[in-house]
């Protein structure tokens, strides 16, 4: 993919609060048509990164979104970018149709017709007061509003926090069905990464203000291998420099980065690690001395 077409490009992105630096020079690109998962612990810098990208905070280094500097050209950028914050709220005193009136007035690319369409099949009525809606319904309403904006980039920060599994599934199905196409890009942060693992086309892990992984999903599957090693192969497995190892339930689990899969298959059962297994592995890598876990 050509770097010319990147939708988002960050170079040496740094953020300091007083004397503490919390983003330590991130470099990444996001291409159009992708669904990117930005995964990290609380306080790792996820929301700060999103804020930089949305022009909500001033940073050192450079970041461009759709060719614009988000901090300097925030208003122009918001024509093409939609966002649900993890602390998002809708005006509780309004009715649903009044909310649509408001958004129609302030956003040139909002389609009321589309928003109404998204509410069909839900229990949300146009006359309902927002304060009387359940948490799941508010999330549905919020999604209906942002999806009705013809944006090229949609940023969702923990969009399904506090929702039950039925609503979460419906939320993501909606996105795939009605929002995604090859010109549109989705950036999601979430803790419930298992649920969206197969939706993602790209995976970014952020830890303590550093990007520790930034890769297309299919390359993740080629690069990383999880091995459940036979008892007589444990030493051989350790000799291949696993990035993670763990003994549980009498099983010896290893994760390898860039080791030949055929070679590993001779030592036991190999699988592609899930994103959450990989997350645990890469987030602990520096803190634990290798070999201690077993």
């Amino acid at each position, binding site marked *: 993919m050509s770097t010319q077409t990147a939708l988002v490009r960050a170079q040496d992105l740094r953020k300091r609060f007083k004397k503490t630096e919390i983003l330590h020079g991130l470099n990444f690109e996001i291409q159009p048509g992708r*669904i990117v998962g930005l995964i990290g612990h609380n306080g790792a810098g996820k929301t700060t990164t999103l804020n930089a990208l949305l022009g909500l905070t001033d940073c050192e280094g450079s970041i461009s979104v759709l060719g614009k500097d988000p901090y300097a050209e925030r208003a122009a950028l918001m024509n093409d970018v939609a966002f649900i914050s993890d602390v998002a709220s809708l005006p509780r005193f309004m009715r649903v149709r009044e909310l649509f009136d408001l958004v129609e007035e302030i956003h040139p690319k909002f389609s009321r017709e589309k928003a109404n369409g998204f509410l069909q099949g839900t229990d949300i009525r146009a006359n309902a007061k927002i304060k009387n809606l359940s948490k799941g319904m508010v999330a549905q309403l919020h999604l209906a509003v942002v999806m009705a904006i013809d944006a090229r980039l949609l940023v969702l920060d923990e969009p399904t926090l506090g929702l039950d599994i039925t609503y979460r*599934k419906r939320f*993501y199905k909606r996105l795939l*069905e009605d929002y995604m196409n090859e010109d549109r890009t989705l950036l999601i942060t979430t803790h419930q990464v298992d649920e969206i693992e*197969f*939706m993602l086309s790209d995976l970014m892990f952020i830890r303590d203000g550093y990007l520790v992984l930034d890769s297309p999903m*299919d390359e993740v*599957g080629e690069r990383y291998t*999880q091995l459940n090693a036979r008892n007589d192969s444990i030493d051989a497995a350790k000799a291949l420099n696993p990035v993670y190892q763990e003994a549980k339930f009498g099983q010896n689990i290893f994760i390898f980065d860039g080791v030949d899969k055929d070679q590993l298959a001779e030592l036991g059962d190999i*699988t592609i690690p899930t994103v959450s297994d990989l997350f645990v592995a890469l987030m602990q890598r520096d803190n634990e001395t290798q070999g201690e876990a077993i």
Partner: protein
Amino acid sequence: MNQWNENQPIFVQIRSQIAALILNEVTAEGEALPSVRQIATDLSVNPLTVTKAYQSLVELGAVEKRRGLGMFVAQGARQNLLAHEREKFLKDEWPRIYAQIQTLDLDLEKLINKGAK
């Protein structure tokens, strides 16, 4: 919760599911297959993953992409797929199965009679 097995990339598993539609003649030659968007939504997977699965079937001559209309089962798709799957079975799976039959000292004729029941 997880409908996938961890040994194969997802696109390979989706490819097998589409291939099964053709092999079992659920969708006949010349008929339309589910759209990329529909499969992506139904399975909650990335549309690019579905596209990749379709692409590999297009390369095998099992599926044809008609511009603006979607994916269709190609003429001769079943034969092409069968030939491909047979070859794959004989090359990748049969040697392992044969070795296991010998290890277990199984009688081939009894096995075949058992399979036919």
